[in-house]
């Protein structure tokens, strides 16, 4: 089965958007929403950011050393895998990273808490360089169907781009399913959810390590804050917490203290970033 020629195209991302918008039968609301989305995404104060999720212990290490570590292959439990992952070597080769050790992976976000799976704290970077590479999905998806059913590498040029030139248009292409048949103006919350939702995200390949000074703020989700309060409330009511609950709370307290000491704001936001009542 052929993939969508509108999406999977050799044309630049901007051209793909323009081709779509100039097509027959495109609703006027699509045009209006496209303009609203572009305006929102490019807003320097509230617009797009690269985010990196990180769990508490790793975040404390980052704050202690000032150095963010990307992947490492030294397991801390168990023996070292005899061979590196063939899958990983393959994907990195397809992506064409000139010196992979210098690349740090993240996601694109517009106000949310990032990909919770990779850590409950979401580091928001102040900026990235214009030529920062982006990929429209998790690059490991290339090893999965339908890509793996054919020549997966051939899709890479169609799915990658650079931050300044392509980010808005790439995201617009991803948002188009949301815009079709929509007879009203889209809100930023819907845009935010569509950009990064659950396991779906746009991958950012930042070249060069970042440090504490590069962090605009750290975000966390209300769910974690609610759980924190729930454990303490149950304790006040006489239910002694388990040791894992205690360690979880203690680390969160330490993260809060260390972020304050480092002068990095910590905010609680809902996943779409619309929770302005939390702070």
């Amino acid at each position, binding site marked *: 089965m052929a993939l969508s020629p509108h999406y999977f195209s050799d044309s630049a991302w901007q051209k793909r958007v323009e081709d779509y918008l100039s097509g027959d039968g495109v609703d006027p609301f699509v045009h209006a929403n496209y303009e609203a989305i572009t305006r929102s995404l490019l807003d320097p104060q509230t617009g797009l950011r690269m985010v990196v999720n990180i769990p508490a212990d790793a975040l404390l290490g980052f704050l202690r050393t000032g150095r963010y570590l990307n992947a490492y292959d030294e397991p801390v*439990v168990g023996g070292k895998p005899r061979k590196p992952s063939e899958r990983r070597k393959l994907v990195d080769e397809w992506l064409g990273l000139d010196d*992979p050790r210098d690349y740090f992976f993240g996601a694109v976000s517009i106000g949310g808490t990032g990909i919770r799976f990779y*850590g409950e704290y979401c580091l928001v970077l102040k900026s990235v360089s214009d030529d920062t590479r982006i990929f429209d999905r998790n690059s490991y998806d290339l*090893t999965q169907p339908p890509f793996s059913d054919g020549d997966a590498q051939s899709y890479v040029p169609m799915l990658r781009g650079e931050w300044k030139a392509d980010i808005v248009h790439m995201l617009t292409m991803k948002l188009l399913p949301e815009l079709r048949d929509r007879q009203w103006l889209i809100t930023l919350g819907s845009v935010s959810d569509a950009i990064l939702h659950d396991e779906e995200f746009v991958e950012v390949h930042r070249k060069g390590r970042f440090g504490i000074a590069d962090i605009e703020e750290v975000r966390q989700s209300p769910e974690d804050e609610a759980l924190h309060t729930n454990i303490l409330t149950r304790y006040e009511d006489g239910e002694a*917490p388990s040791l894992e609950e205690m360690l979880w709370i203690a680390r969160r307290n330490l993260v809060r203290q260390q972020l304050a000491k480092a002068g990095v704001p910590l905010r609680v936001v809902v996943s779409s970033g619309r929770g302005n009542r939390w702070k």
Partner: protein
Amino acid sequence: MEMSDTRWYVESWSTTDGLAFASERTDDGTVVNVVFLAPPYWSPVAVANVATAWAAHRASFQRGFFDAEGENEIAFESLSEIREVLRRAYLASGYGTFPSGEGGEGGEGGEITPLPGGDGGDGGGGFNEVAERLSLVVDADSRHSLADSLQTFYRHEAANSEMPPTLVHYLSSQSQQAARRAEMGGKAERHFFAALTRASFYVFGDYIYDPPYPWRWWAMHRTNPSSILTMIFRMPIRRHNGRVETLGDHLALAASSREYLRSIRRPADLLPLFLGALFICAANDDVSWHGGPLRPDVVDEACRWLAANVPGVIGDDHPASAPLEQFITTMRDEGPAAVRPRADLHTAVAT
């Protein structure tokens, strides 16, 4: 639903943070299920795309869980076994979370002398039964038996032991108001463990207002549970390999390592565990701290708490057991940094 001809594997694991992706695979390696697990409960969250698990290798997750030779991935019969491994490694990584005195070794209270040993009996009072059961918990029944043994032993100690002045002195010397606290601690209790618990409350009275009226600390103990949960990881209690260990460190070791539990060979070795458990479970004791011994139900709860937190599910013969114990040994002998990624290990791809 777990299929009978499948096994579970760790796909990606942020060891010290307890986050992991686990997959259920058939004999031919086909992935039929992927879940995400995270502390503090490790409730499985279904993941639609295994590529999400692999992408974690680009973050702070190690790839898989291999045996010591690095030849084979360690297989698990059930998701519960993986959850126990994640839990134990996570708790073990709590060791050294808060270096004592914030300054690491030594702390600001001066040199900490080793905790006096040899007190608390000669192995009577059911200690041998406790020692035997501590490291053999695998199911609910063995946890109940351990809790019963701990309660029996504690009651025996409480009834027969006098508070050794050296212990009060030891604990008191850690604070800036040592003399006053030692004096007040001396009035507090006559029972060995209970008195030690009280004394330790006092030692960490940097949070107490001056003058340190005990009821104010007690009130804070009851009204600020978040502080209690953090403070337990700050309370210095012993020294190991030149490193000051806290009550939280010992609780973390007891909850994660059977080797640690097997090293408990005398009643005094149980002190950090009883102190920690009593400290946690006494938060709702409404007796003012100089008003008498701990309530029996608080003691019983502390014993049940200890029994509930020691390792279970995975036996010593499980392939995951040895690497876990090695992880803990490395951390305790070489320090918490030894089991965390280092700046020179930052390869984005395996080369």
